[in-house]
């Protein structure tokens, strides 16, 4: 799965991406095409590097050298097309030669800056020969034209051109034929450096991506998770997007802590407005952030990398396809079950499955689903309002209303009974009192 395909998911990866401040737009494009990291070993070596980048950025935040590095990186342009056209034998024109000179000069400016740092950043190849080739007069400025020193004949012709009072088109065309000859030979000379140019371009983008991620990591107070094989554990998990908007209003986000184990699906119960959906969304977001190498929004975390993340959220009603919300949901769960036959490397986050049908059947559907997912050893969280009788599940509930305020903390419980707080909450919303009284009376009667 590419980062690009997470952009339209409801868990909020787009917000994460939009908060990255790249120096060069190329880096964003390259990052979007990156595949999710799946294996423990790749993730662990990535995070080892990333944490040293974060340390470096944290220690040098106010230093000129970092600002300087970012400023130089901002000159990097996307010249992947130019490089691939030249490797197919295209003779470069002035614009393309300018681009190559620009890249080589940036690479050569940054290379010594990085050599003083321990192996934190990817190594840049030596492009000093390309710089020399495209800057024959050693001016060390990034502008470019076919310099006089490339060709003696050209130099003489240009002298005539410059000294003539009138513009001589004939002379100009003679010059352009010679210029073409120079370009052709430059193209040949540069050919053997194309791999290094491409490597340099990618590594410069990689450095930019590292710096942007580290910057976000510090700004959002993220942490580097441990990689686990068995269970996922979050201590003080928070949703960065909501947390920032709450802070702006002078409020604080209440973080939650939880375990997810393969042999014991988590059943999440609790009142409406108790933050169940937000927690599921945040867990999905955090899993993606972890596997795309961003760090995670929690104080401490230990996470199992998975191949697939199923996040069933909200209403899937799709009138165009003629599916009711129930049917759409059933199809998605069917897909999850099918996939789970192939692999158990799945994180399943199901927000109130079968919520739109009658409670009798709904309860049975959820209970049986839980036992299937447990048997197949998936990492599962199911949020539900049904009083499910589920064996070997870990039950958690939102603490709920306390002294007129919602406490979003998640606590372990042995109860099968879903907490009954719907009427209390409706009351706090100022809903018609007569109706709620009647509802309370009916409950009392039963």
């Amino acid at each position, binding site marked *: 799965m590419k980062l690009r395909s997470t952009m339209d998911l409801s868990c909020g990866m787009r917000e994460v991406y939009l908060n990255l401040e790249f120096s060069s737009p190329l880096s964003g494009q390259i990052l979007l095409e990156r595949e999710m990291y799946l294996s423990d070993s790749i993730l662990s070596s990535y995070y080892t590097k990333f944490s040293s980048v974060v340390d470096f950025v944290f220690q040098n935040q106010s230093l000129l050298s970092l600002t300087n590095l970012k400023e130089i990186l901002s000159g990097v342009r996307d010249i992947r097309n130019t490089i691939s056209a030249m490797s197919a034998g295209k003779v470069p024109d002035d*614009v393309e030669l300018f681009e190559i000179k620009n890249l080589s000069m940036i690479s050569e400016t940054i290379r010594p800056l990085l050599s003083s740092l321990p192996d934190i950043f990817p190594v840049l190849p030596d492009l000093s020969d390309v710089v020399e080739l495209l800057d024959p007069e050693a001016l060390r400025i990034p502008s470019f034209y076919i310099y006089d020193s490339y060709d003696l004949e050209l130099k003489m012709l240009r002298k005539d051109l*410059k000294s003539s009072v009138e*513009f001589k088109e004939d002379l100009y065309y003679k010059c352009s034929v010679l210029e073409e000859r120079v370009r052709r030979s430059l193209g040949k000379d540069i050919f053997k450096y194309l791999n290094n140019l491409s490597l340099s371009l990618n590594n410069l983008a990689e450095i930019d991506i590292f710096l942007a991620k580290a910057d976000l990591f510090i700004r959002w107070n993220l942490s580097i998770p441990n990689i686990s094989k068995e269970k996922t554990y979050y201590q003080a998990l928070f949703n960065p997007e909501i947390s920032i908007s709450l802070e702006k209003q002078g409020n604080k986000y209440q973080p939650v802590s939880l375990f997810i184990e393969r042999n014991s699906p988590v059943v999440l119960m609790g009142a409406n407005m108790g933050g169940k959906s937000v927690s599921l969304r945040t867990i999905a977001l955090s899993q993606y952030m972890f596997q795309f190498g961003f760090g995670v929004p929690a104080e401490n975390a230990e996470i199992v990398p998975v191949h697939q993340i199923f996040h069933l959220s909200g209403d899937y009603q799709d009138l165009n396809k003629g599916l009711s919300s129930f049917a759409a949901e059933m199809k998605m769960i069917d897909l999850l079950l099918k996939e789970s036959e192939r692999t158990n490397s799945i994180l399943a986050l199901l927000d109130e499955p079968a919520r739109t049908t009658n409670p009798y059947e709904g309860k049975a559907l959820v209970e049986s689903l839980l036992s299937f997912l447990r048997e197949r050893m998936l990492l599962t969280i199911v949020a539900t309002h049904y009083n499910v009788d589920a064996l070997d599940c870990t039950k958690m509930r939102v603490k709920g209303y306390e002294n007129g305020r919602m406490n979003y903390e998640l606590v372990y419980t042995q109860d099968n009974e879903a907490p009954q707080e719907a009427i209390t909450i409706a009351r706090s919303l100022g809903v018609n009192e007569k109706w709620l009284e009647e509802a309370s009376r009916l409950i009392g009667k039963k």
Partner: protein
Amino acid sequence: MPFVQEILGYRSISVVGLGKNTGKTECLNYILNRLPAEDFTVAVSSAGIDGEVKDQVTGTVKPEIFLREGTLFATSEKHYRERKILSELLDISYRNTSLGRVVTARALAGGKSQLSGHPSTKALKMWIDRATGIFGANLAIIDGALSRVSIASPAITEGLVLATGAALSVSMDNLVFKTSYMVSLINMERTSLNCADDEFLPTSGIWRVDKCGEFNQLVKGGVFAAGSIHPDDLVGASAIFVSGALTDRFLNQIRTACIDNNIELIIRDFTNAFISHSNYISFTRAGGKLRVLNKSKLIAVCANPVSPEGFKLDSELLCEKLSLSLKLPVYDIRRIQNEA
């Protein structure tokens, strides 16, 4: 040399033609040839995607722009590849236009190149800042297409030179009339309200502006959706800001509300006024205030007495009549060139 001396006092000017074949390019060449040769760098570019060798409407050949050594110029990648000039490439923009990215270069010997433009007013403004700042030009000149297809507005430059000519109308009175209407639009006053910088103002919709410069949206979308402005919404407003084009229909709908409550009508610049002369006159005579955010000082008017069909007006009489009506110096570039 007429008006070139005055141009030297500006950091940026645009040369704008009132219509096709009114002699804009000739006017531009005239200025370029007469700027000081020593210790003076000029940067030229164009607003909008223009610059075909042959005029696509009338089929007449357009004069190319001659750039002398040391001149900075910006053009699209396409036109840079087709240039007839020895030049050093200095910079490439990030944004694409339909003719490729915008390339900035310095002429190393005299030669010719087509000029083509920047994708937006903001990009044009940034280029002027770069050219006069980083690249050290003393003056930036923008070849401004006034035809409504121009994407970037020339009104962001400090000064403006207007080219008018017989191509617009072969009746001298009519020509004088049309030109003086355009001049009165160019000379519209800048708003006295303390608005934020143009860059931060909304790019769509119609907005009410309070005394302290606060913006509130009245209508989403353009002036065509504007039947719905309710008088109550305008209570206490100091101005109405139309972010896009101002049309006759909208002006008629809003005119009494503006005049009765002393509300200013603000548009970005004169190129956004798509209103007829009679509506403009009747609005301003009745006390209506039409104001702009960006205003260029009109430096001079150049008149071309020859129409592309070959019709020729009396040059001296034309300049005299225009000058009398506009109260500005008016020049026929060809005539003063021949006399010089």
